[in-house]
């Protein structure tokens, strides 16, 4: 198996940029673990299943978040469906026109409040700018209602954790149910407060660093075998 032309996904390319503890090492342990998982997926088709309630919400409410961001920005935002690639990365940015935007749908007001630019998202946006030619991009966190089935599941979870099984109809159960729904729906909060944006700018020297890491990563992938030792 040859990884000379393997293209990395912008959403996880940040894993390559974690600096190793020792300067004598080209790749960090975090990066190596990430690459080992790529190797096993490409070689044997096995991959860890990462779906969780946060990603489920993100997938299901993406259009709602686009609508919210559209209204806040005064722009018409349409979900991009085209996969873009160059010799190093391959991915599908959320919105490419009129601006390059990546949408993140926060789980609740607590995660939304703390939401910020982080290295993974930075490298993701940089990769998208590299793919599209945009010199600036936006990371947009949106706070939109959770799907009904998730509200139901969280209510059930709270019912067990608060020992309210078989207490349906009691004031305590109703209070819990109301609080869960309140925690997961946000139409009472003004629209302008429910979108947070962060700007990332294209930097050529950062792209060069990314290219070097991708080259090193490909070499590492080519060295892997089933014994876990480098050839």
């Amino acid at each position, binding site marked *: 198996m040859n990884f000379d032309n393997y293209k990395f996904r912008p959403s996880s390319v940040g894993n390559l940029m974690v600096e190793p503890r020792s300067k004598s090492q080209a790749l960090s342990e975090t990066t190596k673990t990430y690459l080992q998982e790529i190797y096993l997926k490409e070689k044997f088709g096995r991959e860890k299943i990462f779906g969780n309630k946060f990603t489920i919400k993100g997938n299901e409410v993406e*259009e709602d978040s*686009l*609508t919210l961001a*559209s209204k806040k920005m005064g722009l*018409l935002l*349409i979900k991009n469906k085209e996969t873009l690639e160059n010799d190093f990365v391959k991915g599908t940015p959320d919105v490419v026109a009129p601006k390059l935007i990546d949408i993140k749908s926060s789980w609740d007001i607590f995660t939304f409040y703390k939401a910020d630019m982080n290295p993974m998202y930075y490298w993701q946006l940089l990769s998208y700018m590299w793919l599209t030619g945009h010199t600036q991009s936006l990371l947009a966190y949106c706070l939109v209602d959770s799907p*009904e089935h998730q509200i139901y599941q969280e209510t059930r979870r709270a019912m067990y954790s608060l020992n309210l099984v078989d207490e349906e109809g009691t004031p305590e159960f*109703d209070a819990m149910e109301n609080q869960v729904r309140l925690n997961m729906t946000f*139409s009472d909060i003004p629209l302008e407060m429910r979108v947070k944006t962060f700007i990332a700018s294209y930097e050529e020297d950062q792209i060069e660093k990314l290219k070097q890491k991708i080259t090193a990563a490909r070499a590492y992938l080519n060295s892997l075998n089933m014994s876990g030792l480098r050839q």
Partner: protein
Amino acid sequence: MSKEVAVKDYLQSPAVRERVSGLLNERSGQFIASVISTVNANESLATCNPATILNAAMTAASLDLPVNSNLGFAYIVPYNDKKLGKVAQFQMGYKGFIQLAQRSGQYQTISATEVYEGQLTAQDPLRGNTYDFTKKDSDTIIGYAALFVLSNGFEKDLYMSKEEVQKHAKRYSQTFKKGFGNWVDDFDAMARKTVIKLLLSRFGPMSVQMQKAIEADQSVLLDGDKHVYADNASATLTDAEKEEIRVREFIEAADDAEALKTGCATYIEGLEKGHSLIELYEGKLEELS
């Protein structure tokens, strides 16, 4: 032409007269006059899709229920749906359900009422709740109850607390969540209807008319027999529908032709010929130019 005249012309058109006559025979003239009267009494109805007004009225006529809102049997309610536009929705009143149940001949008695503090004396989900309507601890309504007794003696009641009814309204009515509509105008009547409808649909023998009424309640009848529950908050839109609504709202809100073109010309160009958004976009551009 004003929208009121447009609705009136539609209702009096030969095609509509023929369709109504097919159902109501000699009563068709009176029926059309009553629908026009209903539209005249409600400004918002005059701007609704005339076909949905007629379909709602025909549903009421097929159930032999008057749509005079003062009587409380059935209503034609204007509704602004993001996808369908302004449409008329058929709504059953609680008196309408009682009327249909009585007509079936299977019910000895059927009724619904508010329950005040002190009147609900015992709750038993298996054997039925007990009430004492001779006393009232205060004027505070704590819930709503419906009861039927069948001709064979079988009896069943349903009680919902006020909070349960509010939760039901919030879940199934977007207009309630937004603060307008029948739920806001007459909460008690809608609550009585809710308990009766749930009681009948869960436990009561249903005549064909009653089944039709439940299916048609709070629906918009488009072409054919397709009921669309536009007000239902739990009805979910597909991603494609949400995108279309977003584009529609962007076009409708545009106040500058250049910004409109910049914003969505490319999207519009990618649509299939005849798509409704193309007409909306071109109309708006013309308006702004």
